[in-house]
């Protein structure tokens, strides 16, 4: 091999290196630019659509946080303040009382408070709620459906992919802008934002 050729080696290598560097840089810019067409300055968080939820109970079991970051919330505007609350009492309850054996909630997280005859107010103690949706099922089947589940953002760690979303049989989970992070029943109507980017 001639000396001349040897002298050429490094510069040829450098040339290839530089060319490849340019190519990689350009591809990265291409991918990033293409993705940037969809970029939003806002952050996105997970929320579930209570109108899609079928109260399967997986919200309690699949959240990476224990107990689940999904809790039951109460849309008081929709509540009938019933004495015979389908979300509070077991269908076969033998008395309309606060006795634990009559309550649907496994952790007794629903507080029943007398307002005036014959009305009762129901509040969720989120410290106790595990997001099992038992009350939601009861309230939706026998009452107004004012009890429903929501991801609580003081507890949710905002996983890149929510592990409940992956298993939710009703596909109720979606990414929503962090500036409007709730879908509380009564505040929004079903279907109205189905076609908007999730």
């Amino acid at each position, binding site marked *: *091999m001639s000396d001349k050729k040897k002298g050429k080696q490094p510069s040829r290598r450098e040339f290839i290196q530089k060319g*490849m*560097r340019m190519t*990689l*840089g350009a591809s*990265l810019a291409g991918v*990033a630019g293409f*993705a*940037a067409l*969809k*970029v*939003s*300055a*806002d*952050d*996105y968080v997970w929320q579930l659509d209570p*109108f*899609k939820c*079928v109260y*399967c*109970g997986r919200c309690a079991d699949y959240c*990476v946080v*224990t107990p689940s970051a999904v809790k039951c919330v*109460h*849309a*008081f505007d*929709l*509540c*009938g*303040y*019933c004495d015979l609350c389908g979300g509070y009492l077991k269908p076969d309850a033998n008395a309309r009382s606060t006795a634990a054996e009559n309550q649907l909630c496994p952790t007794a997280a629903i507080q029943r408070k007398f*307002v*005036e005859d014959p*009305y009762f*107010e129901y*509040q969720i103690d989120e410290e106790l709620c595990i997001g099992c949706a038992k009350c939601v099922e009861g309230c939706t089947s026998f*009452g*107004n*459906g004012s009890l429903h589940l929501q991801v*609580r*953002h*003081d507890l*949710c*760690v*905002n*996983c*890149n*992919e929510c592990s409940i979303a*992956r*298993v939710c*049989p*009703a596909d109720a989970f979606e*990414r929503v802008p*962090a500036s409007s*992070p*709730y879908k509380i*029943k009564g505040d929004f109507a*079903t279907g109205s934002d189905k076609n908007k*980017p*999730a």
Partner: protein
Amino acid sequence: MNRISKILFTLSAFLISLPVWAQQRFPKPEFETGYTQPSTTQPLPRALFLEYLDVFVLVAALVIATWFVVKKRSRLGVMWTSVFALLYFGFFREGCICAIGAIQNVTLAIFDPTYVLPFTALAFFVIPLVVTLFYGRTFCAGVCPLGAIQDLVAFRPIEIPKWLQKILGMIPYLYLGLAILYAATRSEFLICRYDPFIGIFRFDAEFQMLLLGGLFLLVGIFIARPYCRFFCPYGVLLGWMSTFSKKHMTITPSNCIQCKLCANSCPYGVIEEPVEEQGSRRSNVQRLMTYLFFIPLWIGIGGLAGSMLHGPLSKFNTKVYLAEQLVENPELKQDPDYLDARAFVQSGESMDELVKEAREIRSQFYWGGWILGGFMGLVVGLTLLKLASHRNRHDYEPDKTNCLSCGRCMDYCPVKN
């Protein structure tokens, strides 16, 4: 009487069957005692500026780590940077969002027209790659929390034979391909689901995930940074960037004196020894040409294999799985314990629609399988090509693709200026 009860019955049945949002079954009472209704609280998510602060910390940590590795040549400095990154991105931010997972967000942004990409995810994906294109994998050395936690436990690294390293080193390519395939078909985020350390960062996870994380750390005592070297999909992209980076950390500040002291210092076995080209140049070039010639064949074989595997691969998509189950066992639709089937029936979607949707996803997997397989074929072909080629090397040098820029070797080099 009978008629009245009948009317009442139909009326109540009608009321109950009404969709709940159309009308309340039990109207809200008018309270007489001045009762004020509580409001439903809506605790806010983490403030947006804090998300931007994360991006700022990422950039700052990258700058500092790069400075320590490339300029200051301080192993200690980069180690403490990585400890900080572990505390901040790992334990404080609980591992989300990270650059590795952001691959999937970017993929989804490209393939899913309804997905909106948060700026932070894009920044976490792009910034480390750009820095690596200029200075090598300083991200791995000082900023990645996953790398940091493994680096800190690498007490007794043993040497792994080169050929085994090469074979295991192909897993990340497969993982990257699969992660992109599953994100692009909107099936799931594989990387996030199987992140072994996230449970440790959060002090909370399923038992299996904690076990996996513990296992990785245990193995990591002897096989340094097992996740980085043999799994990390982002490492593949970083490796490409680093191979052709403008600058890169060097073992010695000036000239290598061939003392071999650094050779054993690298826990990742990526310091390459000096080699002389053997045999005649012509036959070597010819051998390389044959390998090059075989690459399209590898791509073809890989693609074919990938496309043939699209059936099993698509089973991990819940829609496809449900459709298959219901087609094979229609009676499952009545099974009250099969939640997914129950939800499907409740949703009112027809079987035809479900099957059609599943078919579409399947065909995406078919083409995805071709691409993934072809890509793996290319990887195999190029790995063989690289194994067969020796380029003349006079000094001890880090293999730029796989060097994690940790800087350990710098301390071992006796040449100090």
